[in-house]
């Protein structure tokens, strides 16, 4: 039985206050990293999305599986995948596990028990099952439907009450998830991705869309291009990068120029003097 990959990226990111799927790590989004990781272990990988997210370019860059079952939450995404491909087991990973490694997934797939409803790790934090880095078997579909029809919503409680094979994690931090700016900073530090403080000034349309004329921010972006990608996601800039110029320290710059701490960056939308 094949194992497909399902990357969960439907969360509301309310504590992060920006879309978690788009958090950058060395210029790659959290979602792209998770997708790439799953793709190294599965023949087919899909991003699980809610119907309202299908137009989001970060998600639409990948094959998507849209929730087909009414409701919200990770169980809906897992059930929708099991319904779409009933003869397939699913390696389910949340997109916000930046420290998840190939060796952890190798171990999970090696230890997978197809006769359980799922194979998962114990969380290193509370020793409870971690449902969002797990292999879910086809037989889980009916059990999950029953669990939800009885009012259940929590995939962790489901794993505690049902037949699941549970593994001790190889690496205590592999399943650390990123819900807050502090947790994101900790993940960047663990990945030895350095961040720096930059000043960004906004003018005209950019100022209106960012809702501010300047800010000092901590970023892992290494070039103006990466920084624009990060801020465009945060503020919903309508202009594509190709339509802009950029200035660093009050001089026109290449988009690929390496940024240094303290640099002053200005994105320049099409000008209209005269």
């Amino acid at each position: 039985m094949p194992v497909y990959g399902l990357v969960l990226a439907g969360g509301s990111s309310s504590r992060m206050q920006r879309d978690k799927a788009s958090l950058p790590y060395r210029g790659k989004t959290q979602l792209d990293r998770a997708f790439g990781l799953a793709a190294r272990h599965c023949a087919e990988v899909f991003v699980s999305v809610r119907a309202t997210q299908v137009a989001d370019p970060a998600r639409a860059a990948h094959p998507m599986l849209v929730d087909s079952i009414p409701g919200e939450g990770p169980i809906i995404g897992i059930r929708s995948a099991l319904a779409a491909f009933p003869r397939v087991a699913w390696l389910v990973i949340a997109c916000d596990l930046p420290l998840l490694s190939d060796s952890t997934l190798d171990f999970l797939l090696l230890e997978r028990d197809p006769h359980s409803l799922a194979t998962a790790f114990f969380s290193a934090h509370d020793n409870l099952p971690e449902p969002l880095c797990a292999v879910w078997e086809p037989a889980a579909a009916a059990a999950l439907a029953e669990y939800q029809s009885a009012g259940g919503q929590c995939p962790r409680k489901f794993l505690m009450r049902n037949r699941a094979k549970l593994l001790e994690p190889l690496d205590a931090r592999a399943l650390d998830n990123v819900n807050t700016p502090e947790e994101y900073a900790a993940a960047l530090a663990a990945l030895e991705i350095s961040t720096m403080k930059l000043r960004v000034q906004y003018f005209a349309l950019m100022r209106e869309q960012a809702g501010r004329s300047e800010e000092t921010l901590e970023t892992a972006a290494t070039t103006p291009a990466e920084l624009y990608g990060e801020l465009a996601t945060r503020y919903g800039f309508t202009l594509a990068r190709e339509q802009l110029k950029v200035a660093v320290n009050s001089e026109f710059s290449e988009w690929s120029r390496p940024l240094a701490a303290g640099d002053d960056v200005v994105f320049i939308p099409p000008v209209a003097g005269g």
Partner: protein
Amino acid sequence: MAFRFAQSAIDAVQGRLELRDAGAGGFVSFEGWVRDHNEGKEVTALEYEAFQELALKEGGRILAEALERFPIKRALCIHRVGALQLTDLAVWVGVSAVHRGEAFDACRYIIDEVKHRVPIWKKEHYRNGDSGWVNCEQCAAAPLHSHHADQHHAALDVDIGK
């Protein structure tokens, strides 16, 4: 030889005085005025905003280029920022030269380059209550259009009377 901004009404008389030169036989100026229509919309007022640090450098480079390309004596460009009303003077370019031909050519060169290169943005307010940043809103509505650059030029060519 300078590019500068004016926070209030541009003093064109003062600009002309600065270009006087005993060797100059002619003086040409261009004035860009706030017009009541653009791209089929009725315009009621304008705002100009600039990234002044870079704009002063880029504007200065354009004037230096004009001096190098054309045998002129002096050149000056003053651009307004802030809120402007219809008929207000938005930009003033002046050039003095030995002969009129070079003065006309350099003046045209300066205003064309300023419009295309200097980080200044114009927000138009329309009769119908809408407003928009010129050259930005239509791009955002149709991003990455293959004729995007042409659209810019078309918009630039009509937005002040020249």
